């Protein structure tokens, strides 16, 4: 999520000034009979929103957040009342549900059959009690094969390559604790959702000594990867696709032994004032033509079955939207925030970033 966060954070930062104005609109949006969506910025295709307005006469009022923790903090406070639809990432569903902030979904009112089974019933929400996959992304690596000098297949290759002269100092890591420490845990044969404090700290030590090679922990700018100021970077497939569009020499890989799959999801906020409208909107969103429009708009794949074949032929580097060819979903893992360890992940991440300073 966080490589995604980064992209969004940049957008969010840009929008922060106007965002204040957006926040000011929230109360007005809470009129009954409408639809109140709380989501990431720019996360719904304007085309499909306009079509929905035409069809139903309802204009969804969208307010935005720039991180899952902001969403959690808001829904967990009195200011979070009045939202109908929210868009949490896979990592936070369990915590939101545990706090009673999400409504249980009525599967009879939605067509789950049209969705990609690879994205359903995953360990962050068994049986999709609370969430419907909206779109997804991967944690991978983008690199300049010439600058790095070797091919990268595993996270071990990634760490080794980062220490080479000429690469060191031009490396970008994620700013999310689990995305930086996760790869070191996987190399130790550990599951990042089951790892205890000692495991996380041990994996963190590897990252702390690696930190001196790191140039940046902030949003990967596709231009920086394309022009060579960054030659090796963790990122999601969306940023990678943008960078490869600018510089076709760059390569994208989802390293072994495993990597992250994050899924952003539609969910209904507890006590949603416009429940019927929310279901109506969600059914609309799951229509094939809307899913295609969403994919082309946000650049990340929607969750419908057989989406690849439905995209227009004019879409560039279309395989990269799906993280390259032959991504094996059964090998990917999604992070689930656990109150017992999340603090440790973040503490160690802070230490890693400080070690790079």
């Amino acid at each position: 999520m966080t490589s995604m966060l980064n992209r969004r954070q940049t957008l969010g930062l840009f929008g922060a000034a106007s965002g204040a104005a957006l926040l000011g609109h929230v109360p007005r949006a809470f009129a009954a009979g409408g639809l109140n969506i709380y989501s990431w910025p720019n996360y719904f295709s304007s085309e499909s929103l306009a079509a929905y307005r035409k069809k139903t006469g309802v204009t969804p009022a969208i307010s935005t957040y720039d991180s899952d923790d902001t969403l959690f903090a808001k829904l967990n406070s009195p200011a979070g009342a009045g939202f109908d639809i929210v868009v949490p990432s896979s990592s936070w569903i369990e915590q939101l549900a545990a706090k009673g902030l999400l409504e249980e979904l009525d599967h009879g009112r939605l067509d789950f059959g049209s969705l990609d089974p690879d994205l359903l019933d995953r360990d962050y929400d068994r049986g999709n009690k609370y969430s419907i996959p909206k779109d997804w992304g991967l944690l991978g690596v983008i690199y300049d094969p010439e600058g790095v000098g070797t091919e990268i297949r595993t996270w071990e290759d990634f760490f080794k390559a980062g220490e080479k002269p000429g690469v060191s100092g031009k490396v970008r890591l994620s700013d999310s604790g689990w995305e930086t420490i996760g790869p070191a845990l996987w190399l130790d044969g550990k599951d990042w959702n089951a790892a205890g404090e000692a495991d996380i700290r041990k994996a963190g030590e590897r990252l702390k000594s690696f930190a001196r090679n790191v140039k940046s922990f902030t949003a990967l700018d596709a231009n920086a990867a394309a022009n060579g100021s960054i030659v090796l970077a963790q990122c999601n497939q969306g940023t990678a696709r943008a960078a490869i569009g600018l510089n076709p020499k760059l390569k994208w890989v989802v390293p072994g032994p495993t990597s992250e799959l994050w899924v952003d999801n539609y969910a209904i906020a507890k006590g949603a004032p416009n429940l019927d409208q929310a279901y109506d909107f969600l059914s609309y969103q799951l229509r094939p033509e809307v899913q295609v429009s969403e994919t082309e708009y946000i650049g990340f794949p929607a969750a419908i079955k057989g989406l690849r074949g439905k995209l227009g032929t004019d879409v560039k580097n279309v395989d990269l939207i799906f993280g390259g060819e032959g991504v094996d979903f059964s090998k990917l893992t999604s992070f689930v925030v656990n109150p017992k360890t999340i603090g440790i992940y973040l503490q160690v991440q802070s230490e890693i970033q400080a070690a790079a300073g």
Partner: protein
Amino acid sequence: MAQANGNPARSADGGRTARPRRSVAVADHLIAAVPALWLAVFFLLPLAFTFVFSFGHSLFGGVELGFTLDNYRLALSGFYGATFLRTLRFAVTASALCLAVAFPAALFIARLSGRRKNVALLLILIPYFSSFLIRIMALTMLMARGGVVEWLLNGVGLHAGPLDLLDTQTAVFIGMVYAYLPIAIIPLVVVLDRIPRALVEASRDLGASRWRTFRHVTLPLTRPGIATAALLTAVPMLGELVIPRLLGGGRGLLMGQAISSQYLQSQNYPLGSAMAVLVLVAVGVLVAALARMTKGFVEVPR
């Protein structure tokens, strides 16, 4: 702060108005009540929460009230203690750099004639009309590879090849000085402007060199301006989190980021609150020190 009191003339002849003193006082109090109430509700109340939370126990996304000093112990020890010190060092350095750049500019502006002075001040303030984030994002574009700075330095032969300025400490300090320069210049100009020309002339007449005049006449009289400028820059710098992130690549942690991540990502309000209180204490110490520095300036001699 200092210059607010530095103009005793106006309050002394406040009797210029015909209304009796008493009703003026009532009106004054009413007017003052609005911002006071505002601050009480939106500043003091949250501050009180922060203070109370800082002694509590953390639940994920909640606080169990109680009394423990563990949060402070954690915030001051080891890693977070080091972060706190690094932040202090960072704010002091950046503020000093900012003042060093601001002083000559202020001196120049203060010596301009009336109309030109206003134009100069306006030029200093114009960037403030655009969003802070937009200005910092613009800086990243200037400093990126292939950006204007690289082209310029290559053009005048000060640098050869691509320039990797972005995501370095240097970039962060450039950004800090840039962003806070206007609020350092303004108080300095105000104070420099008030220094009677006659004092400077007298010093020169008595045989002091330009440098000696500056050191022994101008500089001491500028102390309230320096204190105000230092305060106005160092205090927000203690909480700065955007510039180190956008220009420094997020390397090296500062208190601002640490607090925000405790509140949001870790959902650990008590620890975040304890850190916030510590920063507040640091600000308090800073204010006290600067207030001491300007002692005796309550009435600026005219």
